[in-house]
């Protein structure tokens, strides 16, 4: 029963996302379409946190580093090599993935809090480096560029200047990314990830190379964060070192936790909730982040499985079964110290 409900909900979600540009402009021309575009992009960064924490049990506090590499990869490719939209996006993903390979080889040697610390440290190193390498990165002010067309042939020209085109391009790439992750997470590789998250010692004792498994997830997460960064660079037409600071990583982690880690779409809803909240409240209440902080603490305290956990508990209650599923982080929480 709950599987059917989930499938129906997914269809509704897909239909709603496809219809966004048709309905939201009625409320406020283009503004909300851009908000949803932004939600989709940032949800990918939250997803990269989720891939690590929700699927191999490593809490990263430094995913902004790969987001930043995605941004600069795209921005520099466009400004220096005249890359188009697709070339720029690819450059962003490649830059972030390479960085994730280098950082991951070292970082996944560690677990528990030590992993969180090393990921922050790596991101801080490159944050400071990008801040001081002003000629290349533009530092805090960032690097502006004009976005090349997405498609320009056969007399048809699609540009990001059109809010609706931009929305569908982002939606398409985001959906593609979630689709690929869905395939991966239900594959033998995904099962390995979950085994490592649940119990890394036992995973080793059934013959899984835990290090390699975590490294794979780390690189994958880096690539996803890189895609997010590249898309965000095109969305804002600029890249800035300030997006590599640990607060950005922290926010992404919060979005993932609030949405519910260990589920593919949880982080999307967490991101949506908090960004919509920001858009609605920040204009009337300057200190709305106080509420976000409080919400974060409350979620960890009372609903550590996030929105996704509340959803599945609710479904279980509706279908008459007891919602006695212990939280998915139990395994992660018992990681070796």
């Amino acid at each position, binding site marked *: 029963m709950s599987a059917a409900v989930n499938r129906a909900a997914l269809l509704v979600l897909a239909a709603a996302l496809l219809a966004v540009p048709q309905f939201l402009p009625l409320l406020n021309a283009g503004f909300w379409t851009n908000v949803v575009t932004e939600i989709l992009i940032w949800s990918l960064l939250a997803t990269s946190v989720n891939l690590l924490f929700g699927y191999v049990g490593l809490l990263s506090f430094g995913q902004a580093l790969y987001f930043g590499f995605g941004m600069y990869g795209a921005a520099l490719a466009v400004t220096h090599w005249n890359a188009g939209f697709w070339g720029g996006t690819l450059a962003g993903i490649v830059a972030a993935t390479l960085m994730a390979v280098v950082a991951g080889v070292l970082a996944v040697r560690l677990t528990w809090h030590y992993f969180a610390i090393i990921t922050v440290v790596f991101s801080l190193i490159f944050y400071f480096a990008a801040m001081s390498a002003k000629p290349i990165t533009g530092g805090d002010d960032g690097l502006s560029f004009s976005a090349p067309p997405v498609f320009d042939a056969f007399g048809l020209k699609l540009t990001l200047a059109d809010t609706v085109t931009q929305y569908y391009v982002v939606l398409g790439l985001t959906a593609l990314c979630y689709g690929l992750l869905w395939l*991966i997470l*239900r594959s*033998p590789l995904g099962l390995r990830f979950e085994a490592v*998250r649940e*119990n890394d010692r036992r995973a080793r004792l059934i013959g899984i190379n835990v290090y390699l498994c975590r490294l794979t997830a780390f690189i994958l997460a880096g690539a996803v964060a890189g895609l997010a960064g590249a898309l965000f660079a095109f969305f804002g037409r600029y890249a800035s070192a300030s997006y590599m600071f640990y607060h950005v990583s922290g926010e992404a982690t919060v979005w993932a936790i609030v949405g519910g880690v260990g589920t593919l779409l949880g982080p999307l809803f967490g991101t949506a909730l908090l960004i919509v909240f920001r858009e609605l409240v920040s204009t009337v209440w300057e200190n709305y982040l106080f509420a976000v902080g409080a919400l974060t603490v409350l979620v960890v305290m009372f609903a550590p499985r996030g929105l996704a956990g509340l959803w599945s508990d609710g479904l279980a209650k509706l279908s008459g079964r007891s919602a006695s599923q212990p939280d998915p982080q139990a395994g992660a929480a018992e990681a070796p110290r």
Partner: protein
Amino acid sequence: MTAAALETRNLTRRFGGLTAVDDVSMTLASGRLNAIIGPNGAGKTTFFNLVTGELRADAGSVTAHGVALTNLPPHRIVRAGVSRTLQIKSVFGGLTVADNVRAAVMAHEGVMSPFRSILSYGAISRRVADLIAEVGLERYADTKAQTLSYGDVALLELALALANEPKLLLLDEPVCGMGPQETERAVAKIKDVARRTDVVIIEHDMEVVFSIADHILVMAQGAILAEGTPAEISANAKVQETYLGAAEDED
């Protein structure tokens, strides 16, 4: 069979000033059920950890069925056909029983395709079903492991250990913490498995050890104190004095 099930030469491991496993050389023959006993802190579990590569040896070598295992990473040792259960039963709590076993079978088969669904592997699914049936957990195939009873978790762990078709199976206190009925079920299972696989058990329950073991090795303070058949061990004065006597005040 020519090569011994498990052979160590001068195996040593120190923790700071303490030598947990002290120059242990042993040959456990294939084709019989071997048991290692000894008081707490004798170095039995450390010894297992050295064999499975979870700890690195400071000195010495480990061979199983003629294959050198010394200081290989744990997953390579598992793939060489050495499986193990832990004293505190250890499974993948958040996964279903079927997925637990499937993960183990897939790891053994080296399957890690990133795009095919785990359910699309027919042969593996059949093997998973067989293993679950072998330990008698068919009823719980779709139940999350963390909701199983302790005895069932132990059986699931055994299924995980059997998934790689081990040539050598190390069982660390397999009946520890079990009630009489669960113990009986587990002992029957161990005897059954021992017919086709070489088994080494660490166990504190003397009744169990003396009823199932063909060969017993006594460890104390990181070294081998005595070895022989159950009858020889129970007649050994040295063992009586340092271990069997001491065991009574332990609880």
